[in-house]
């Protein structure tokens, strides 16, 4: 309902559309338990929502001097749609899908901060409540509300329209949408403390939104399929990712029989669709890496040469600390820990990097393999310092403890009489 109403009222009145829909829902909550669900529930809800929007618009007009001709246009549209609703014609699935897409593009407009787009999409497109969003991002409800208010204000100020972008604008707009979707997904996928049910919800929503894009022939660009494949491959691993204590399991330790095969299959189909055309996006490369893992029965039989080749390409396009660290891990798998350390050393050091736990634990792991227990401990302790969540901390502490044991064993061996 919000997508349709926003379409009619315009993105400038997104808040009004939300309020009108909320009003209708609350009315339903009051009346339907006693009167029963009406014969055409959506028509009922739409009628109440539209009337509410009209009421607010009318009373708003009294405060202004000049008639906004846009408003009478809006009123006409609402009346048209209302009579269509009553005849049971409303909600052709294609129209509904288009309206949802238009709203997604509005919420993910490049001019909005990405974090704001994520929250706005969840609220307005996916129907999440402020409390749920706050729980998911470990933020306060107040900060999320503010983020939403600022985003809507920006939409008004920038004159953003609620419509699907033209072919000319599509590449830039689509890039922004994909960024937001992947941000949403990683927020859910990241091993943070907090409600794991919410987290899985976020992954699901990101995938669902991606599929809305893929279902529209104009939107279904190869990158969209690539991102979907990536998200599906990663989401497939969720059932295997934590042990019975809620602790993280590495790829090496996961029980692959728990991976969701149906999701992997869907991912492979999207990967195939992604192969059309010549553009090789970073999503393509990441999806290919994820596909290799998904198709490998045991960690020990992983084709690291292939993965390294993909990371080489990825590092050229997107030399971020995350990518370069992952590449170093692949380097170590193929050429050994000394090369792994060298690959890490190539990463330009800057502020952001020192606070990236995975980099330090990777370095620690390489040192450990080489028997440099002091260096390893130093790295793991650095990682511990910048760990952000309980599961991350426990994971690193386990590594440190393991180091201790290994070190003792090695020294015992060394100090044995020659």
């Amino acid at each position, binding site marked *: 309902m919000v997508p349709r109403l926003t379409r009619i009222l315009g993105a400038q009145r997104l808040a009004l559309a939300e309020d009108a829909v909320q009003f209708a829902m*609350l009315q339903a*909550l*009051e009346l*339907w338990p*006693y*009167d029963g669900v009406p014969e055409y529930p959506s028509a009922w809800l739409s009628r109440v929502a539209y009337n509410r929007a009209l009421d607010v618009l009318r009373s708003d007009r009294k405060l202004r001097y000049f008639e906004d001709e846009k408003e009478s246009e809006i009123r006409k549209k609402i009346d048209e749609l209302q009579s269509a609703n009553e005849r049971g014609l409303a909600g052709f699935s294609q129209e509904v899908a288009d309206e949802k897409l238009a709203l997604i593009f509005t919420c993910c407009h490049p001019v909005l901060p990405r974090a704001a787009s994520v929250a706005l999409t969840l609220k307005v497109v*996916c129907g999440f*409540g402020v*409390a*749920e969003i706050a729980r998911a991002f470990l933020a306060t409800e107040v900060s999320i509300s503010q983020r939403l208010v600022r985003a809507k204000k920006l939409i008004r100020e920038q004159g953003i329209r609620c419509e699907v972008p033209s072919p000319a604008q599509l590449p830039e707009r689509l890039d922004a949408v994909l960024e937001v979707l992947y941000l949403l997904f990683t927020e859910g996928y990241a091993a943070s403390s907090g409600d794991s049910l919410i987290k899985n919800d976020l992954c699901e929503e990101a995938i669902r939104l991606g599929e809305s894009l893929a279902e529209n022939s104009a939107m279904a660009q190869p990158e969209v399929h690539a991102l979907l494949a990536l998200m599906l491959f990663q989401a497939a691993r969720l059932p295997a990712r934590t042990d019975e204590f809620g602790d993280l399991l590495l790829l090496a330790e996961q029980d692959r029989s728990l991976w969701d095969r149906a999701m992997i299959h869907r991912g492979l189909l999207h990967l195939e669709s992604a192969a059309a055309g010549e553009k090789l996006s970073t999503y393509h490369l990441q999806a290919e890496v994820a596909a290799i893992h998904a198709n490998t029965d045991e960690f020990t039989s992983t084709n690291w040469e292939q993965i390294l080749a993909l990371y080489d390409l990825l590092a050229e396009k997107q030399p971020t600390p995350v990518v370069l660290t992952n590449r170093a891990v692949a380097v170590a798998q193929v050429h050994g820990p000394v090369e792994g350390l060298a690959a890490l050393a190539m990463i330009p050091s800057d502020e952001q990097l020192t606070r990236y736990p995975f980099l330090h634990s990777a370095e620690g792991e390489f040192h450990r393999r080489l028997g440099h227990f002091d260096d390893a401990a130093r790295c793991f302790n650095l990682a511990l310092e910048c760990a952000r969540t309980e599961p991350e901390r426990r994971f690193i502490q386990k590594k440190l403890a393991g180091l201790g044991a290994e070190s003792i064993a090695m020294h015992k061996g060394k100090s044995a009489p020659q």
Partner: protein
Amino acid sequence: MPNFVLLLHQSPKMLSNASPEEIQTILAKYGAWREELVKANKMRAGIKLGNDGGRHLRLNGGKVAVTDGPYSESQEVLGGLFMIEATDYDEAVRIAQTGPHLVGGNWIEVRSVDRVHP
């Protein structure tokens, strides 16, 4: 079979911040609860009362005084009622419990309806 009235008392301003998704879930629960009663031929009436507070009439110093009742925003009010058919209080109470009304401060008053025997 005797009739019972379920008076649904509502705590102020519950659920006004619920998300559309959450509201859908609750509506589905009410729908299912109602349907079961209708199918079992136990639902006699459902009456939703207005949120406007209503009017209170009392005798005050020999004259009738009319005041506005409480608004649902700030005080607990009677939201509505159902009349159902049930064998006895135990069944009426069981039926009342299975509905989604009992959340937060909401409460349900179950009263038997007296029969007028000729």
